[in-house]
């Protein structure tokens, strides 16, 4: 994701426009299809990648510290809501994390790729990325925590192909959460 945020191509929407759509999408009564339609050009632009080495390690360390602050407890253990879908605490934590990171990108524009702030705003609309829950940027402690959770809940990472199996066996479709 850091590669995508380093995309040197100027994004088709400015940060304010993306932020406005992001806030409107939070409203349950909003026309989500229309709003997502407005982001179609951003979706195309976000497929591009840039030079990941443009990121400054000091800035990444600061971003990483925000992950630790928002998602880990004093003992360095992840809160239960981390990487958990449909959880208000997770959504709140991500909102705070998003604001923290956006603030860092604003305060240190020289340490980040040119359009990192715009692309991060778009990335924060996590439903557009096909995620079931918001994902913090993959900084060092995120990798470490994800690995620890994957090791602890390894059975939860089993690959399944239930839809194909049910089709071939003429079974009802699987229940979804």
């Amino acid at each position, binding site marked *: 994701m850091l590669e995508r945020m380093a995309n040197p191509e100027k994004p088709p929407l400015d940060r304010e426009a993306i932020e406005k759509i992001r806030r409107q999408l939070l409203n349950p009564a909003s026309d989500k299809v229309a709003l997502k339609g407005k982001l179609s050009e951003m979706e195309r632009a976000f497929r591009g990648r840039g030079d990941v080495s443009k*990121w400054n390690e000091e800035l990444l360390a600061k971003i990483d510290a925000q992950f630790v602050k928002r998602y880990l407890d004093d003992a360095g253990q992840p809160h239960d809501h981390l990487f958990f879908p449909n959880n208000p605490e997770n959504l709140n934590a991500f909102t705070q994390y998003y604001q923290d990171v956006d603030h860092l990108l604003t305060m240190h524009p020289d340490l980040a790729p040119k359009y990192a702030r715009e692309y991060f705003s778009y990335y924060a609309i996590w439903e557009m990325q096909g995620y079931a829950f918001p994902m913090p940027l993959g900084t060092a402690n995120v*990798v*470490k925590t994800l690995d620890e959770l994957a090791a602890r809940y*390894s059975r939860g*990472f089993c690959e399944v192909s239930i839809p194909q199996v049910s089709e071939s066996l003429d079974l009802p479709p699987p229940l979804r959460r």
Partner: protein
Amino acid sequence: MTEVSTVVYLATESIHNNDIVGKIEETGEKLSNAIFRFLSRNEIRGVHLATDEEQLQEDVYVLKDAIELDLRDLKDRDRGNEGDPTILYRNFMKAVKEKEEEYRDKELSGYKRLFCVPSFALGLVMASRIRRHYTHSSWFKISSLNQMLKVHGAVSQ
């Protein structure tokens, strides 16, 4: 005396000569990188041989050199393409194959496993392009990376 040993000899004999770095760099990027890495190794004190982490860093930097060449040659239309890495990153794939062969018959099985999964090695090398952030993290060591591969290194698309 080979070209490398000549330059290393010059380096050790003229350690106070400020021009030595320039002389090494004159040998070309690939060779000068190899020389600098060789010089930075501890080859003298047997009790202070390279740690696993230092060995890993050196291997990753060798692969990083290869991928920097690939990225330099990558055309704009290919940039961001998530296609076949064997096509996009030819130099890297060649280098990772060489690393795999280097460790094939050695006891250092952890390295062998790492370089047998080019996609994982590619991720590591890409991460190493951001100076220090990942390479100096607590999990960037051979034992942790092998554990990662063991837990979730065999997921197909």
